């Protein structure tokens, strides 16, 4: 597998401004130095609780918000997307697309489905006239909609169908990488499975790579090859999906897995439940040392003083924990 994207030390600090002169009094470190890479044809899951910076990270990659620092080396050309001007960025935009969470808010209610799906191609002048219409129909069919749907408006579709329209739009420019931000969390359970299957099928068909951002661990596990767990703007652990869930190496991963109730009453009664105390700390005023230490049941003095670096502990497994070598953590 070849590398498609390499993210180095990505940071996004939002200034907190106060007073009539809007003086900057501090920063919310939404994303605070994360590193990961995405291989071609791979799905990388980005999982964490609200406020952990997973959405901000995704938006920075598309340059929808400017990153504070860091580099994203993309494609065979190894271009650093973070350094490009908006004009230089344009040819790369069509190669990275996004699928949004809310299928009700992300489609323009005044445009027909045909216009919505055709718009990226019109803007980028990749197709015109009847070729464009044919391409729209082809795209709609590949996501399980029909050719007569092009003339209908988004309100005429259910949540799952709208998400399919959003996916067709993301596919219109034949991207290499799709950033999917919570693409199934607004959907009902039975429809969620349809969309997950569709995403997996399209990945095979068009050789796509995904960055799949979600808070639902079981959904992320299902679709991802590798998973990165984020906590308060940092990556706590990255590993391939199966290893992560069977033998987590970071206490936060262990607690997250334990907190997910299994749809299996007997197994659920037998499990040991690790209950984290308190809330996620305020990202504008994070704790010293390891950000997780106030909630961690294994924390020692070193955790309060030194911030652990993300380091490799086994083939393909990286963990940011001082005690990962000695801890015996439980998986599913």
């Amino acid at each position, binding site marked *: 597998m070849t590398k498609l994207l390499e993210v180095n030390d990505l940071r996004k600090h939002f200034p907190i401004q106060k007073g009539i002169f809007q003086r900057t009094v501090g920063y919310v470190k939404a994303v605070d130095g994360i590193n990961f890479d995405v291989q071609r044809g791979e799905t990388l899951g980005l999982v964490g609780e609200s406020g952990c910076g997973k959405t901000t990270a995704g938006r920075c990659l598309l340059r929808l918000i400017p990153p504070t620092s860091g580099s994203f080396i993309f494609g065979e050309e190894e271009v650093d997307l973070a350094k490009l001007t908006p004009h230089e960025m344009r040819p790369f935009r069509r190669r990275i697309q996004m699928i949004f969470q809310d299928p009700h808010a992300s489609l323009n209610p005044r445009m027909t489905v045909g216009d919505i799906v055709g718009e990226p191609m019109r803007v980028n002048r990749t197709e015109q006239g009847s070729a464009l219409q044919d391409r729209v129909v082809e795209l709609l069919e590949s996501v399980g909609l029909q050719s007569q749907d092009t003339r209908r408006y988004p309100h005429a579709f259910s949540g799952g169908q709208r998400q399919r329209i959003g996916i067709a739009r993301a596919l219109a420019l034949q991207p290499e990488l799709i950033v999917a931000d919570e693409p199934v969390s607004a959907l009902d359970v039975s429809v969620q499975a349809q969309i997950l299957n569709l995403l*997996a099928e399209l990945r095979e068909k068009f050789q796509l790579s995904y960055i799949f951002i979600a808070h639902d661990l079981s959904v992320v596990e299902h679709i991802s090859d590798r998973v990165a767990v984020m906590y308060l703007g940092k990556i706590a652990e990255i590993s391939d999906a199966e290893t992560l869930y069977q033998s987590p190496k970071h206490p936060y991963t262990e607690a997250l897995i334990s907190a997910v*109730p299994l749809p299996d009453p007997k197994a659920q009664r037998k499990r040991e439940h690790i*209950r984290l105390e308190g809330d996620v700390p305020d990202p504008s005023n994070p704790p010293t040392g390891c950000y997780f230490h106030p909630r961690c049941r294994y924390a020692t003095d070193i955790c309060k003083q030194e911030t652990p670096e993300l380091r490799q502990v086994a083939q393909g497994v990286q963990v940011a924990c001082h005690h990962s070598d000695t801890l015996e953590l439980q998986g599913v």
Partner: protein
Amino acid sequence: MASAEKTPYEKPLLEISGLKTVFPTDDGIVNAVNDVSFSIARGQTVGVVGESGCGKSITGLSMLQLVPSPGRIEAGEILFHRNGTDAPIDIAQVSPKSELMRQIRGNEIAIIFQEPMTSLNPVYTVGNQIAEAIVLHEQVDKKTAHERAIEMIARVGIPAPAQRVDEYPHQLSGGMRQRIMIAMALCCSPSLLIADEPTTALDVTIQAQVLGLMQELQAEMGMAIMLITHDLGVIADFADEVVVMYSGRVVEKGTVDDIFYNPLHPYTQGLLKSIPVLGRTAEKTLPSIPGTVPHPLTLPVGCSFGPRCPERMPECDQMPELAETDGKTENGRHTVRCWLHTDLEGKG
């Protein structure tokens, strides 16, 4: 059915039968809740599960006469066995604004909603809002009510309750707001708590905290809980009995083990198969249910799940009854609304 061993749950607290709640709209009448029957015993947890629009929330609101206008309860009984009286009250017949309903609401049956942000009043302190319920239902002065509020805040596990009591909702995190909602619901020791998606807006680790808290308080105070959710994991963790709803009707009900290990309705089976389960990475494609939930104004003829059902038969053009499944379960209370499990000849 005569069951040999009596569980501690045998005494009914609330019995719903044939409940029908309708919403007249410009395009026709929507039967949001249609012929729903189930009962809740004292101290028991009943989980109501289904997808959006299946009528699970409206069932909960009907039980408190809180159905938003123009909706109304058209038929059915909601028999509530109050503490200390022998004759049950039919809540379906009680006027929403009557004194009796006010006494029951919040005092004997309490509800917590999904969105802790929108269900708290932003201009009052949380202590004020908890004390309001206490003053309303019990003959106590404001000072005592304020002290009780602090006590309740401590009981739901919020640190520094004496300070928190004077804070406003926006000063609290989502998990804490939901704890305040629980404190408010439980301050009058209700015999039934309706929890409508209590943890859907929360993160998983906070969800685990809140569910754990509800279980602890239930063990302590002995109230029954009706847990409305779409999350089968939460149901498996928490419920004793499960009611599965689809398009306004109950399609299957039974004990939690019956529903998870011996699901009989094709919808229940499909639902259980279509969720990704943590730790089971093997299968690449999830078995999904084709199609979507039908629109409530254009329900299919007969069984509403028919068009999506893999086992569709000619009989499915008629709506089957919710029927006992004799001999197919150890617990004997497993019922299902499906022709596959209904004796055709018996129905004439």
